[in-house]
């Protein structure tokens, strides 16, 4: 009987733990959010058939995610059963379940972001198809990018770079002109940098420099690009970048850092 209860508790835990850092209340809220979003998707799917293939492929991705989630859930149930068998090491198993839950919750987070993105795209299309009257309503709808950016940025802050890369990419694809556009582009580069994917990082920083030449992340994009180039031993290019930084942003704190680097590289 007690074992059954433990199983129930664990299943319960599995269900409500998708956000390891969140409170129970937040989780419940999140669940209702997900349910709402799923409802919306169901309605919108009717329109999807008539619409373009891009959306279908996005939805397929979504299904894949959900399937992955289900697999993860099955694994967890199995793990839970195994744990039940050895009640002496129950604590340790709970911890490993927790870890798997983190992975699962990460996937769910990702799914949520994608659901939001899909949702947004569908809405955009509908607005186009309907009439120009609705254009007014879509103006100023920037609460949502705000929330998505904020959640993704938190993944970045907590060192969940893989997750943050997905988030920033989605964000840039959907809201390139939001006030956080240059930030997202820069932090995407920094995620790659912290993951050691230096070529991608350089590309991303160049994008910041080219797309947002007057943004507040431009100087630091130069600096981080030079850092990545130094890691790759492409010193000539690094020096060039550092010099450009010094020249274009002489008053940025990164100019001082560039100076230190140039001295280290034996240039000045």
């Amino acid at each position: 009987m007690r074992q059954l209860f433990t199983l129930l508790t664990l299943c319960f835990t599995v269900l409500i733990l998708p956000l390891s850092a969140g409170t129970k209340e937040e989780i419940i809220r999140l669940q209702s959010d997900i349910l709402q979003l799923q409802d919306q998707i169901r309605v919108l799917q009717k329109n999807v058939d008539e619409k373009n293939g891009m959306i279908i492929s996005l939805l397929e991705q979504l299904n894949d995610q959900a399937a992955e989630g289900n697999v993860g859930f099955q694994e967890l149930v199995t793990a839970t059963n195994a744990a039940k068998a050895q009640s002496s090491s129950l604590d340790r198993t709970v911890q490993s379940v927790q870890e798997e839950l983190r992975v699962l919750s990460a996937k769910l987070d990702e799914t949520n972001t994608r659901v939001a993105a899909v949702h947004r795209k569908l809405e955009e299309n509908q607005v186009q198809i309907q009439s120009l009257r609705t254009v007014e309503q879509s103006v100023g709808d920037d609460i949502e990018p705000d929330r998505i950016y904020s959640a993704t940025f938190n993944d970045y802050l907590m060192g969940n770079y893989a997750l943050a890369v997905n988030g920033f990419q989605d964000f840039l694809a959907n809201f390139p002109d939001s006030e956080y556009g240059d930030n997202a582009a820069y932090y995407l580069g920094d995620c790659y940098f912290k993951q050691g994917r230096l070529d991608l990082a350089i590309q991303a920083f160049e994008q910041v420099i080219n797309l947002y030449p007057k943004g507040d992340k431009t100087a630091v994009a130069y600096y981080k690009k030079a850092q990545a180039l130094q890691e790759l031993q492409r010193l000539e290019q690094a020096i060039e970048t550092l010099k450009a930084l010094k020249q274009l942003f002489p008053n940025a704190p990164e100019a001082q850092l560039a100076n230190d680097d140039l001295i280290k590289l034996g240039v000045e």
Partner: protein
Amino acid sequence: MKAKFLILLILLGSGFLQAQDPDAVIFPKPTPTRLAVADFTPKTSSTPDTQTALNVFNQVLLDDLKFSAFFELPSKSFYPLKPLRTPQDVIFENWQVPTLDIDFLAFGSVQVDATVTVVEAYVYDVKTRQQVIGKRYTIGDTTLIRRVAHEFADQVVYELSAGASQGVAKSRIAFSSLKGDSKEIWVMDYDGANGRQISFNGGINKFPEWSADNQMLVYVAKLPTVNRWQLFLHEVDGRPTEIEVTSSYVSSPAFARDGRVAFSSRTQSSREADIFIRPAGGGPARNITNARGIDTSPSWSPTGAQIAFISDRTGGPQVWVMDADGSNLRQLVTEGGHCDSPDWSPDGRFVLYSWQAPRQWKHDIYLAEVATGKLFQLTSGFGTNESPHWSPDGRHIAFQSTRTGTKQIFIMNADGRNLKQVTTYGINESPAWAPYVEANRLGQ
């Protein structure tokens, strides 16, 4: 019309902080878990020793669970009268009355014998009548009874919050305390009990912070016979070691999770405070802010990749954020007035700080969301409220306040509710709530 309204708002708003209600963001509030905590009873015989231990245990357990902010605790006056000792004593029907309407019931027994004290503690799900927790704690000495209550409270929080928090009942707070002539570093339980003096140099000791393993404190001190501020590392159970700095000024040190120490100091020739970082293994510290103005009060992001700090480079002291190499600098709070004591939340999302509005002299506690710079006010009204510090689970905040007269340490929920004063004697300031020890950190 709308334009006029806008202008009016701007005029009103420009002098004040555009703070939002923290509830909606930090603590969305669906139904909380309802928990009854029946008084623990003597297991066999009610000796005076057992009764004394029981009184302490029951009070501490109730206080811990109340403060945890996870539960609604119905008044004890609605409880059935029959004392509970073992699960066999529970008549569930009596606990399922509408006046109580509880989800869970905690109860148990304490027995103090000549050589050993035994606490048996249970939590039952009242609806399914299943046991959720059953624990037996054996201690040699009743002085540890508070510890057992804390241990059990954390267990209850952990189980009934489905792992959302490990609880803070076992956690400790370091602080700076003026008793008599000297201001020394002390450590106490989070609820103010078991205060213990750490430094004994007779000087002014300030700004303690914990290492990630809870074994070490870092703080600054002005010793009576030494005419400069010194930076000390201090094993909680050992002796202090000085870390050399380059001037007579050093302040507000902070440990990164990996052992790096950030602090505010200056070089002999520079005139103003900068942020320095000492490498984890020791060695010379590196100056990472070279700008004009005072830079102080560094606080690390959870991963140690970023630092929030205070700088007055553009006028008054404001909250700034940068990468730990000094790049990617940006101002997080741009409200004017004076900000200080930033503390980065364990979940990375917020920076807590104190703010003094322009032309005011009292400070209050605020939160800034790092991604967006959104601000939330947590305290208001009474006294000056400063030096905020997160609890390890990020659900509570410790700070110093003069609301009852002298500077004392208070704790509260991260939404500003559930305020509790935890020091009374002397002048007490700069609380530093110990982080969860890495090895025990779940899912890390």
